[in-house]
Structures are given as structure tokens and as C-alpha cells.
């Protein structure tokens, strides 16, 4: 008799557990629905210090003025594409607004994940940098709103360069001389470019080509040939770290002194100088080619995913991020260059030289350009780099091959 009650009790307990788990899921749905009515979920990719400023100096005012809760979540540029794809496939978009790296927009556009913001052009202040509007425009549709411009600067180890009686190079000739001198002195290259055969590499190739007056979307013009020929001469004198250098590792190489000169984004200032205490690491805008100094305009833009339940509120938040007050806060607290020419902020004393370097580089910054055949262009540039710069093939003949590939998809 005692055995008979055990089985029904076990089955009842298992069923209760199963129902409570299901009820938990249902409760979350109800909570989520209630929460989404009064909240805005925004996805950004920021460091901890940047989040501190965002949460204490930027979000509270918007929350107070609009009576909403802004739930800000950390999502890296590469991960947001998959997250939004999954949410849209499930018909459950839970992210209302994103800020995205301008060089990581293609996948979002290609998969049709973003709302067309063309009808909101009037929300963009007149003083916004035009280049930052162009970077968010694809096939005459404005898919992203401008947020913050950014550009790579050249970091150098002042102490090490002084020891070698060298100064930061301002031209290609100087760059080649400095790289050779350091390699001769230290028996290993100490100048790095991002030669990792990924997007970081592509941006550096763009800079070299445009500095020589070339067009990366043509690829076999005179300027492009000059650029690749120069990179071919430079490569043997570069640090071996160039093969792995990206936006993250370049800071480490500069900080641990395996590289004395290299370009990277300005966030490296906080990592290397402020947190790492390496005050001998200075920065300037960089070097010019035979025609000009050229940098690819980076930064972030604001996008609103298709299917968000809070589109109007998201547009309001986008306007808020572009406002003069917020832009000045971002300048003062984070030393981010403003997207508006009328927004001024006061950066900390120790940040001033680096901020000036960024602003100087921005004077020569141009957008990468948005083309529907971008994957072909990216692959052609990287393959050309590998063939010519790394493997030493002749520049003109090799570029002719890849130029044909780009020309064929342009049609």
C-alpha cells in the first residue's frame, strides 16, 4: 500500500515543477509587455568608463523629461547583427535603438534590419558634419542618423624615438626612414600598421591609396599603384606584430613597447596613458602621402531596427543624442569629438594634446563610401594587399586583376 502513493506523488511533483517553469516564462512575457510600454532599450558598445558617463550624465535627463526608463545594454558591433536578425525572425524586436560603428553597417543594411530614416532628415541639426550624414546613407536612403565622428590617430613612444634621434614622421618618406632606422637599431621592426587582413587592414589601405590621390573603388589607377608600391617597400621594415594588430591589440603593442609607432582609435589614450600610466606615449594626426594626408572617417551612427515597438520614442532619443547638450557632455567627459560644429566642451588638461590630434586628423577625414558591392571591394583590397605587399608580386599587374573584379560588380 505504501508503495502505491509514491508514484502519484512523484508524477504530481514533476508536473508542478513543469507548470511552474512554464508559468515563469509566461510571467516574464507579461512583465516584458508592461516594461516595454514605459521603457526604451538601447544597445551600445562602450567601455566601463564610457558607460559610467552615459548612465550618470546622459540617460537620466532623457528619462526625466520623457517619463521613461532607458535600459542600456552592451552589444558589440559584430554581435548586434545576429541579435537583430534573430529578433526579427522571431517577430519580437526587443532593441529599440542601436549605435553602431560606421565601418560595420554593411551587414545590417544587407539583411534589411534597419528602418528607413529618410523622413526624419529634418531632425538632423544643420550644424552636423556632412560626412557623418553620408556614412549613414545607402542608395539614397538615410538608414542611420549621425552620432559621433571618430578617426585613427598615430601614437608614438616619444622616449624611444628620442633615444633613436627620430621625430614622428609627417610624410611617407619620413615614415620609411623611421621604420628602417628603428629596424636597423633594434634588429626588429618597431613601426606597425594593421596588416591583419581584416577590416582594420582595409581602412589603412584606404588611407594609403587616398593619400596618393587614388580611388580604392577603381584600384588600378596611378595613386593606388603608388600606394601599394610604397606599402611593399615599407612592409619588410614593419614590426611582426603588424600581422595581428587590430583595434584592440595595437594598444597592447604600444603599451608593452613592442611597437613604437602605430595608428589606432583614440580610445587607446585611456587604455595606454590614463590606465596604463604610459605618459611617454604621445599622439599626432599622422603622415601625408604624395598628394595629401587622408584618414577614413569612423565613428558611430544611430539606427532604429525594423519592428521596434517604440519607434517614436527611439526617434526622440536619437534627437536627444544629437542635441548640443549631449554632444558637449560627450566632449567634456569622454573627449569624443562632437558631430556638430557648434558644440564645444572642455576636455581635461592631460587629454588636450590627444584631442587636438583627433581634431587635426578629422580635418582630413573622408567617409569610406557605401556601395552595394562592398564585400567584393573589401576582399579585392585584402587579396591585393596579400599578393603585393606580403608576397611581393608586381603592383600594376596584380591591381589590374582585382580592379577588373570590382569593375564587373559595379555594373
Amino acid at each position, binding site marked *: 500500500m505504501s508503495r502505491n502513493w509514491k508514484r502519484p506523488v512523484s508524477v504530481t511533483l514533476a508536473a508542478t515543477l513543469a507548470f511552474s517553469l512554464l508559468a515563469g516564462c509566461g510571467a516574464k512575457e507579461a512583465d516584458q509587455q508592461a516594461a516595454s510600454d514605459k521603457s526604451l532599450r538601447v544597445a551600445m558598445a562602450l567601455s*566601463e568608463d564610457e558607460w559610467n558617463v552615459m548612465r550618470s550624465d546622459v540617460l537620466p535627463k532623457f528619462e526625466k523629461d520623457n517619463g521613461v526608463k532607458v535600459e542600456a545594454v552592451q552589444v558589440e558591433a559584430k554581435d548586434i547583427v545576429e541579435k537583430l536578425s534573430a529578433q526579427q525572425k522571431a517577430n519580437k524586436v526587443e532593441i529599440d535603438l542601436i549605435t553602431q560603428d560606421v565601418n560595420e553597417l554593411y551587414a545590417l543594411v544587407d539583411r534589411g534590419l534597419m528602418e528607413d530614416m529618410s523622413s526624419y532628415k529634418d531632425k538632423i541639426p544643420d550644424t552636423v558634419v556632412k560626412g557623418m550624414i553620408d556614412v549613414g546613407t545607402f542608395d539614397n536612403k538615410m538608414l542611420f542618423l549621425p552620432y559621433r565622428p571618430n578617426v585613427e590617430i598615430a601614437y608614438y613612444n616619444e622616449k624611444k624615438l628620442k633615444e633613436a634621434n627620430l621625430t614622428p614622421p609627417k610624410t611617407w618618406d619620413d615614415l620609411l626612414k623611421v621604420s628602417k632606422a628603428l629596424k636597423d637599431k633594434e634588429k626588429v621592426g618597431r613601426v606597425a600598421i594593421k596588416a591583419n587582413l581584416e577590416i582594420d587592414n582595409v581602412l589603412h589601405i584606404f588611407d594609403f591609396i587616398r593619400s596618393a590621390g587614388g580611388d580604392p573603388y577603381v584600384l588600378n589607377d596611378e595613386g593606388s599603384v603608388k600606394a601599394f608600391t610604397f606599402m611593399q617597400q615599407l612592409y619588410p621594415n614593419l614590426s611582426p606584430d603588424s600581422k595581428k594588430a587590430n583595434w584592440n591589440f595595437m594598444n597592447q603593442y604600444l603599451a608593452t613597447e613592442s611597437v613604437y609607432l602605430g595608428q589606432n582609435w583614440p580610445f587607446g589614450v585611456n587604455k595606454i596613458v590614463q590606465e596604463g600610466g604610459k605618459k611617454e606615449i604621445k599622439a599626432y594626426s599622422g603622415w601625408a602621402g604624395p598628394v595629401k594626408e587622408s584618414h577614413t572617417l569612423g565613428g558611430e551612427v544611430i539606427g532604429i531596427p525594423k519592428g521596434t515597438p517604440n519607434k517614436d520614442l527611439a526617434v526622440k532619443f536619437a534627437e536627444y543624442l544629437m542635441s548640443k547638450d549631449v554632444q558637449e557632455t560627450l566632449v567634456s567627459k569622454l573627449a569624443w569629438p562632437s558631430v556638430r560644429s557648434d558644440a564645444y566642451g572642455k576636455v581635461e588638461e592631460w587629454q588636450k594634446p590627444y584631442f587636438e590630434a583627433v581634431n587635426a586628423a578629422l580635418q582630413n577625414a573622408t567617409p569610406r563610401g557605401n556601395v552595394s558591392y562592398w564585400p567584393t571591394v573589401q576582399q579585392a583590397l585584402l587579396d591585393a594587399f596579400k599578393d603585393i605587399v606580403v608576397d611581393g608580386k608586381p603592383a600594376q599587374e596584380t591591381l589590374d586583376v582585382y580592379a577588373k573584379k570590382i569593375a564587373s560588380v559595379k555594373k
Partner: protein
Amino acid sequence: MKKWVPYLVLIVFSIIMLIPVYIMFKVSLSTPEDVLTAHPPYWIQNFTWDHWQKVFESGNIWAPMEKSLVVATLTMVVGVILAAPASYVISRMGRKWKYIFILGLLFTRMFPDVGIVLPISVNFLEWNLVDTSLGLILAHLIPNLPFLAWILVSTFETIPRDLEKAAYIDGASRLQSLTRVVLPLALPGIAVGALFVWLNSWNEFTYSLYLTVSERTLPLQTFYYINRGDFFQSAAYSVFLTIPVIIITFVLQRYLKAGQLSGAVKG
């Protein structure tokens, strides 16, 4: 002469395995000038708690740690509860059916997690399982359950059926034989399987990346600091990530006893 060779090999490989862990530990407790230099010292010369203090003061470590602990432990428990009885049954099947089931289990492991995680995350979104511990537990069971079942089938196979028959003769039911005779003998194998599942779930990254938005696990949080944080806090997070692994390994290691079945069956 030859007796010391295996010991030498073991010592060398142990040092090779431990060096990265030591470097991680050293960076988390060293001042920046001892790390950010072309020739860092081998030992900790200028000791500092600053980096650990920053990590704890930020408060960002506790929620991910709790989430990882809960998910890993429940994945292990649920996995063992589901896999143990199933593996016992498979181990007692005829050879043909046993191999069909084992191969079927291993076949599911041929699909890379990266390939299936997107459709899984779509389904989990529809079922409100994203950003929940339950969702992560279910996701972690996908790769771990077949693996655990495979280990436990081998474990149960080593337990002679004669022991169960002896228990039946003494009046035990099927369930009593399983719980009082077979499972205690299978404890070392279950401990090994449980340990693997816990470690796999604790370190798991892909499903956590897709199935969390605001509530990260500790590996994701550590990855965030490696990407966006400074070198020292990254090292502190990495050391912190390793501590529960060391504790759990020591706790479960005592169940790994050899020769437990010797003398159990006579003749």
C-alpha cells in the same frame, strides 16, 4: 635511469600548462610599470591589490558570477538526472540497439554550435527564454547531454549485471537495484561526467552570447573586459573565472577512485 623520464615529462608539461595561469595571476597583482614594459620581471616585484579592488568596487562581477554558477550547477544536476537513467537503459540493451543509440547521440554533436545557435535563439525568443537562466540551461544541455550520456553508458557497462541479479535475489526491485547497487558503484563515472558538464557549462560562450542581452554570464563579462577594459582588470576577471573551476575540480576529484569494483563479483 628510465624511471625519472615520465616524471620529467610530467613536470615539463605541467609547467607549460601552468605558465599562462601564473602570468594571468601575476598581471592581476602587479603595478602597470611591471607589466607594460618590453622586459617584464618573472616574479611579482611591485604587488598591488588595486586592480582587484576596482573589479570588486565596480560591482559588475557579482551578477554574472551568480548567473554562471546557477546555470552551470543546474545544467549539471539536470543533465545527470536525465542522462543517468537513460544511459543505464542503453547500457543494458543488446549490442545492435546500444550502438544505434550511442551513434545517434554522437551524431547530434556533429553540428557545430555556431551553425545552430541562430535558429535556436529565434525559437527561444518566441518562447521568452532569452535572458533567462532556464533558457541557458536548456541551451547548455544541447551539447552536454549527449556527451554525458555517452560517458555514463561506458560507466554502466563496467558494472556487472550479476550484481543486480544478486540484488534481485535478495528481494530488491528494479528501482532499488538501480538506486542502491548500480548508482553508488557508478558514482566515479557520474562524478567525471558531472565535472565535464559543469566545466563546459561554466566556460560556455556561444549560446550565452546569443541568448543573453542584459544579463551576461561571467565568461561574457570577462570577454567584455578583454575587449573594452584595461589589461589588469581583464586579468583579474580571468583569475576570478578560474577560481570556481579549481574548487569544483577538487571537490569532485575525491569521487574518482580506482579499483572500486574489485572483489565485488566472485567466481
